[in-house]
C-alpha cells in the first residue's frame, strides 16, 4: 500500500477529534440516552448506619456507621428517599432510623437515602 493511502488513513484517524472538538452539538455521545449515563461515570459510595441527626435548614444528614463514626452528608433537591418501592421525603426521616445512603463522593451529597425495611416478626 503506498504512502499516499496511509496518509489518507492517518487523516481519517485524526478527524474524529476535530469533529467532536466543534462542540457537543456536533455529536452527542454523552447526552444521548445511552446506558452510559453520566451517573455511571460519577464516583459514588455507599454508607450504612443509623441517622444521628437531621437538619432540614442546613440541608444536612448525619449518619453513624457501625464503628460509631459520624458522617455528615448534604441533602439536595436531587436526593431521593425510599422505603422499599415507596417514595418518601426528608420529613419522613427520624433519628435512630437505619438507612443505607448512596452519596456522591466528590461533595458528599446524598443521592439516595434508603430506609431499612422492618422485617416481619416471626411468631
Amino acid at each position, binding site marked *: 500500500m503506498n504512502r499516499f493511502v496511509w496518509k489518507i488513513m492517518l487523516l481519517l484517524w485524526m478527524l474524529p477529534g476535530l469533529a467532536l472538538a466543534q462542540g457537543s452539538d*456536533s*455529536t452527542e455521545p454523552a447526552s444521548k440516552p445511552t446506558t452510559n449515563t453520566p451517573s455511571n461515570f*460519577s464516583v459514588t459510595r455507599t454508607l450504612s448506619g443509623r441517622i444521628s441527626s437531621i437538619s432540614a435548614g442546613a440541608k444536612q444528614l448525619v449518619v453513624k456507621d457501625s464503628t460509631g463514626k459520624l458522617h455528615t452528608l448534604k441533602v439536595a433537591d436531587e436526593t431521593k428517599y425510599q422505603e422499599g418501592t415507596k417514595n418518601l421525603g426528608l420529613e419522613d426521616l427520624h433519628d435512630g432510623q437505619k438507612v443505607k445512603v448512596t452519596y456522591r463522593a466528590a461533595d458528599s451529597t446524598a443521592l439516595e437515602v434508603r430506609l431499612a425495611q422492618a422485617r416481619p416478626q416471626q411468631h
Partner: protein
Amino acid sequence: MIETGQSPQVIRRFGLWRRPRLWTLAGLLLFSEAVYVAMLRFDAVSSAKSVFTFLALLAFLFLCYGAGYRVLRDLQERRGAMVLIVSGALLFRLTMLFAGLPHDSDWKEMLSAARADVRGRAVSYDRFLLFDNDIWRYLWDGHVWANRANPYLYEPSNPRLDTLASSSDSENTVWSDVRDNVNHPQVPTIYPPLAESMFYAAHALAPGSVFVMKSFFVAFDLLALLFVALTLRALDRPATDMVLYAWNPLIIKAIAGSGHMDAMVAAALAATAYFMVRGSHASAAIAWGLSVLMKLSPLVLLPFLLRRLGWRKTGLGIAVIALGYLPFLNSGEAAFAGLRTFAHRWQFNAGIFDLVQWLVGHLSADPSRLAKMICAIIFLFLLGYLSWKDDGANRSFAFYSATALGGLLVLGPTVMPWYVVWLLPLAVIARTRIWIYFSALVCLAFLVMIDGMERGGVLLLEYGIFAVFLHRNCLPFKRGAEASKCDQVLITEEQMLEMNPKTVIGEKP
C-alpha cells in the same frame, strides 16, 4: 524489591555495584512502587483535581515504565534485570490488590478490612475501585450461578433474585450491598460461559470477596506474563522485553487495581501465541477457543488460525467454543441478550466511530446504526487485507492478531481502557509498539470521570497522538531501508534460519 536486610547479599550476588543500569532499574522500581502506594492513599472521586492527579500519577508510572525498557535495551546483565523485573511485577500487583479500600484508613485498618472482605463478613471495598466498578457484576454472577440460577436469564435487578440478596445468615449480609453496586443492573450478563465459570470458581474460593476475585485475575495476569516470557525465549528474543507487559501501568491498574476480568483473555491469547510459535497447533487452537469463551472478540483471529492450522485443527478450537456454550443451550437467545444490549446502546471513547457517526449524521435517521455498519465494513476490509498479506508463519501470528484485534478495538463504538489489555501480550511478542503507546493514551478516557461528559478535545488528543505514533512507528507494510521496528516480526522463517541456523521453528532454540 531489594529489602534492606538483604541488600549486601543481593548487591554481591548480582554485582549491582558494578552495574549502574541495574541500579537505575532498581530505582525506577522503587519510584513506581512509591506511586502505587500513593494510589492507595488517593481519594478517587469525580472532580477535576482528583482525575488530573490520577492521570499525573499514571503518567509518572508510564515514564518509569518507558525508562525501564530503555535501560534494559542495552543491558548485558540479564539475570539481575530479570530478578528486578519479576520482583516489580509481583510487588506492583500485590500493592494494587488493596486499591479500592477506604483511602483514609491506616495500614492496620486496611488489612483488617481486607480480612473482613475475604471472610465475606462485609463489603469493605468502595463501589468504585480507581474509577471502575465492573467487579461487582462478576461477584454477583458467581453468586447467582452458585445458587443454580442462570445469569443469562435474570438480570441483577430481577425481583426473582431478591432471595439471593437477602441471606438468612445474619453474618452474611454482603449480597445486598454487592447487588446494589452492580452497574447497569437492568442488563443481563454479557460475559461468555468460561468467564462465568471463572466467576463461579472465584466465588467458590471466597464468596463475595473483592480481594480474592482480584487475586484470581492477577493469577491469570501473571500466567499471561509467563507465556509472554516463554514466547520471547522461543523466538530467541531478550527475555527482558517482558518488562513491557510486566510493568505496564494500565495492566496493573486495570487488573490488580480495578479487578477487570480481561486478564483471562490476555492469558489465553498469550498462550495461543506461545503454542503457535512452538508449533503446537492443537494446543494453540484450544487456547484460542478458550479465549473466545471469555470474550468474543478473539473470534476475529479465525482467518490467521485457518491459514496456519487448516480447517481440521481450527475445528478443534471451534469445538471448544461449542462445548463451552453447551450447558447454556437452554438459555437460547437469552445467552446473548446482554451482549445485544451492549452492542446496541454502549458508546464510549470511540474516536473513529464518532467521526463516522458525525459524517453520516445527516444521511440517516439512525446514524449510530449506519456508523456501525460502515465501521464493520472498514474492519472487514482491514481483516481481508491482513489475511491477504499474512505470510502464514507461526512467528508472525502475534503481529497479525494484535493488528486485527487492535483494529477491531479502535473501530468499535466502545473503547474502554482495559480492553487494550487483550492486545498487550500479542503486541509485546510482535513488537508492535503502537498498542503499547495506545495503552498510555487510552488512559485519557478517564477524564470522563470528572463530570460524566466526553470531550472532543480529549478525543482529538488521544486519537491525534495515536495517529502520529501510527505514522512514525508502525506502518507495518513499509519496505526497504525505512522498514519499521515492528516489521522485524515479519521476517520469514527462512530468513530467521539463515541468520541463526540453530533455530528450528517450532522447537526451542
